[in-house]
């Protein structure tokens, strides 16, 4: 297998991690919204920001596979 193939597999693994993370954030945000609909707006913004954090970690993987 060439080094590009290995890099693609690495990017795929990073995407799995990010998917799990964002899914977990979404699950907890939905739970919290169902329990306390009155602070839905606040929960939504913090969920979005946390999703951006998780996404950034996945993008580190993308950058690493771009460099290879």
């Amino acid at each position, binding site marked *: 297998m060439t080094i590009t193939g290995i890099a693609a597999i690495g990017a795929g693994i990073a995407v799995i991690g990010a998917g799990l993370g964002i899914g977990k954030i979404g699950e907890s945000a939905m739970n919290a919204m169902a329990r306390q609909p009155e602070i839905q707006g606040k929960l939504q913004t913090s969920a*979005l*920001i946390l999703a*951006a*954090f998780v*996404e*950034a970690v996945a*993008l*580190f993987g*993308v*950058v690493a596979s771009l460099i290879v």
Partner: protein
Amino acid sequence: MTLNTLRAVLFLVFSVAISNFGFATQDNDDQDKPFNAKEMIMHHVKDGHEFHIVDWNNEPITIPLPIILFTDNGLTTFMSSEFQHDDSGSQIVEKNGGRFVKYHEKIYQLNAGVDALAFNEEQHPTNASLPLDFSITKNVFMMWVSVLVLLLIFISSARKYKKTNSLVPSGIASFMEPLIIFIRDEVAIPMIGEDKYKKYMPFLLSVFFFIWINNIFGLIPILNGANVSGNIAFTLSLALFTFVITLFSGNKNYWKHIFWMPGVPVPMKIFLMPIEIIGMFVKPFSLTIRLFANITAGHIIILSLMSLVFIFKSEFIAPVSVGFSLFIMIIEIVVVAIQAYIFTVLSALYIGTATAEDNH
């Protein structure tokens, strides 16, 4: 849906259609060689020496930008139009006793007595040197445009406050005031603290609006040659500002927590010291990579969806790829604001940890 949102969505659809048209005309002219999506994407994501707008009748329409080189013979300047859109290193420009070629958006100075570039196996030129390049590239150009736009917005809104003498904002100021209040009340005060936040407000506001407006300019299709905030040098220098401000505003407690962590046994103190020192440098590094990777990835996704049309060589893919890139475009509008916000929040957080008083 109100009229304004409808208008915004229509404008978005129209701009995406225009950008598609731009790529289409650009990539149709070289029928003989197969379409290389990676090459096209990298050309759009990277910095360049001329501002490419659109191809018209196989003739590229560009804005030439000045090239400023520092060679052995001193300062050498000329316009990038003298290369006549050549990027393969075959057009030689003679200036100030040196002969220059442009190869993959880099300016090389040919060695004496050489007429063409020679390459080694890794496609690096072997008979030319790289002079110091201080050119006004398209990223620098776009950065100046956004600085100009920011100056216009903020000077005019500041003038409004001065003129009316009332606390109620009007005009553009009524749009900017909530954003500034938001940065002050949601970012600066909770992260840095009520008594110290004022000193850091100019930095936080500048960083927020500068990153945001550069991100937005990166999304506008006709300007999408410039990927300013997806340039690692740009994000690194912004992160270095945060780093230097953090270092210089660090108080006694901050340095104590780094070099001799209070409240833990001595072996643990020795163990924690290198970790804390590494952590000090990792923070600006992660700021750099986060912004760079997010913005560049957005550009790459949109361009890859567009190049699907040329990879499959079929018009029936076009609605799919335009639809998908419209969807990504809408996500990107949120992402560019969130990334500017996150950079500001993390900068404020790092400054806040450096200035916090010891209260345990």
